[in-house]
């Protein structure tokens, strides 16, 4: 893979980032990518059915924001959720086994790819309806504010969801009540098969908070350090009691919207260009190598370690039994 000529960005210069941090981001992003590649394979083998939205290409978004999060902060997102779960520390085995619909899945196989949760990691789902998680995120932030616990909720949604009316109902309420919520718009430029310019009147979605008095900024989502830095600004704003904050994180998904998407709405060259010139993992890899923080052998060792985790998750997701049919009728009412 071709590399960036100069991995040093404004953010990396400002960050004065440590070797340990860089290695951590590298490892976390790589885990997401390899996990998703494996999920794609299992899908191709028929082990995962239905819907499966891969996060490949967008890894820096969630890894950067998790780096800005503190213990107890919450996160809630849409159906492209595997990356968020891995980044907040949920067990890859449980995620993969949910994809295959097994008992060992995080929702015992009842939720599937789009619907998983973790109370322990403060992960409030995976939501399959475009934009529906956004008011929930405000509600979580309300509960934090009510309890006075100083926590922040990261509410993720995409550029497509940004055209849902409920997003603006939520902006209004969140601003009105000064809720500690960071609205993270993962702008991967395509709402399924519709390019942003075909669906969105104002391309700068982060400015849409202006009508509600919510500050917003556009962030380079292929630069994990820029994301982290923006995440710190946003959470500081929320924790200071100044209300919500919007981050429009410019990113790109390499794969189709879901596994069943042939991606005919964009050119192969466009995708290839992003992969070659802007890949977020390659970026950190170069920072590590050029900064003398790690050698090829070190990175190979990490690759191997990640591969082992992913393989273990895949094995588990095949071996874990299907839940008993009686589970169909449980967890409906208390």
């Amino acid at each position, binding site marked *: 893979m071709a590399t960036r000529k100069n991995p040093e960005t404004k953010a990396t210069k400002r960050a004065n980032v440590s070797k340990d941090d860089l290695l951590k981001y590298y490892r976390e992003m790589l885990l997401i990518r390899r996990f998703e590649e494996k999920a794609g394979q299992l899908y191709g083998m028929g082990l995962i059915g239905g819907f499966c939205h891969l996060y490949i290409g967008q890894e820096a978004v969630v890894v950067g924001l998790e780096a800005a999060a503190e213990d107890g902060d*919450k996160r*809630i997102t849409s159906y492209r959720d595997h990356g968020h779960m891995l980044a907040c520390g949920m067990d890859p085995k449980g995620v993969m086994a949910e994809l295959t619909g097994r008992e060992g899945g*995080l*929702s*015992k196989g*009842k*939720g599937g790819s789009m*619907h*998983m*949760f*973790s*109370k322990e990691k403060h992960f*409030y*789902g*995976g*939501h*399959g*309806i475009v934009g*529906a998680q*956004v*008011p*929930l*995120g*405000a*509600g*979580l*932030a*309300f*509960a*934090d504010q*009510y*309890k006075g616990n100083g926590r922040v909720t990261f509410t993720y949604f995409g550029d497509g969801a940004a055209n849902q*009316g*409920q997003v603006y*109902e*939520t902006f*209004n*309420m969140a601003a*009105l009540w000064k809720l500690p919520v960071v609205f993270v718009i993962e702008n991967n430029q395509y709402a399924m098969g519709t390019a942003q310019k075909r669906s969105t009147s104002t391309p700068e979605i982060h400015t849409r908070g202006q009508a509600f008095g919510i500050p917003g900024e556009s962030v380079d989502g292929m630069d994990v350090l820029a994301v982290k830095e923006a995440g710190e600004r946003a959470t500081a704003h929320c924790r200071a009691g100044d209300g919500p904050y919007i981050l429009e994180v410019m990113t790109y998904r390499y794969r189709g919207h879901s596994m069943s998407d042939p991606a005919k709405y964009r050119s192969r060259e466009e995708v290839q260009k992003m992969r070659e010139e802007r890949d977020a993992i390659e970026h950190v890899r170069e920072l590590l190598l050029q900064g003398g923080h790690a050698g090829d052998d070190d990175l190979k060792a990490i690759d191997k370690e990640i591969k082992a985790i992913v393989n273990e998750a895949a094995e588990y997701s095949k071996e874990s039994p299907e839940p008993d049919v009686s589970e169909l009728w*449980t*967890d*409906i*009412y*208390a």
Partner: protein
Amino acid sequence: MTMIEAIRDALDIAMGRDSRVIVFGEDVGYFGGVFRCTAGLQRKYGPTRCFDTPISELGIVGAGIGMAAYGLRPVVEIQFADYMYPAYDQIVSEAARLRYRSAGEFTCPMVVRMPSGGGIFGAQTHSQSPEALFTHVTGLKTVVPSSPRAAKGLLMAAIEDPDPVIFLEPKRLYNGPFDGYHDRPVTAWKNHPLGEVPEGHFTLPLGRAEIARPGRSVTVLAYGTMVHVAQSGADAAGIDAEVIDLQTLLPLDLETVTASVRKTGRCLVLHEATLTSGFGAELAALVQAECFYHLEAPVARVAGWDTPYPHVHEWQYFPGPARVAEALRALLEEV
């Protein structure tokens, strides 16, 4: 006590007992609610526990689900049941399904209150009875009180329930037990035994029907306003009908229903909502399946006509005592 006062009393006591209970909706805080059900609560509990929201039903309910998922006990008011439709996605896709899709890890103990039903010349956007849209959704409980006593007991139980509850308040019953005779003077709840409401903490279990009036000839299944109309209809026909007040539509107290139908051998299902695919269809199917060999006549239904809720012809639409009486007579003529 009126039904409005009973609801306010339930909210007041619930808020006093449990700081997780918060009450919000359009005009709910400062103004005290369009029907005054929350009057005084903001003054008593402060604007963080009882507050106004923007006119954003989808956002309000969505925010409530988030609050419930993180340990609060939101009681949301939708100003009219007819305004619920924008929020339907959140109710169906999120509130009702959170427990299942998280395999029990997250729940949504939220109550969504909404005034429903007609009889106030509200026409098509302020009169509807959308209960069947909720009973069709697994994961929700749907409650319809028929008196101040029931409203208080059921609302307190709903707030304490670990699952999302849709609480439909028949607005025609807010101030009195409407018997269906719109041209007669309104009775006040203070002159009705069910206007007497126990003080303090008081719950009626969800999923339990009550026999509103015992009888031997025919069973009438009703809820909300129609519980009273059923009785005046039976009186008009001079028929010894047993009127069951379902109270909770889902989960349904099938035991009480079947015990009555097995006794009487005849069943009339009543509701104000439109007939086709109404909750009465579910009741009729259950009764025929459970009581087939006890039935002396086909299960009958009286409901609103399959039209939009009209303005001018409200009392032609409304399944009043005359239609109930006629259906009861016809049922008894069947052999």
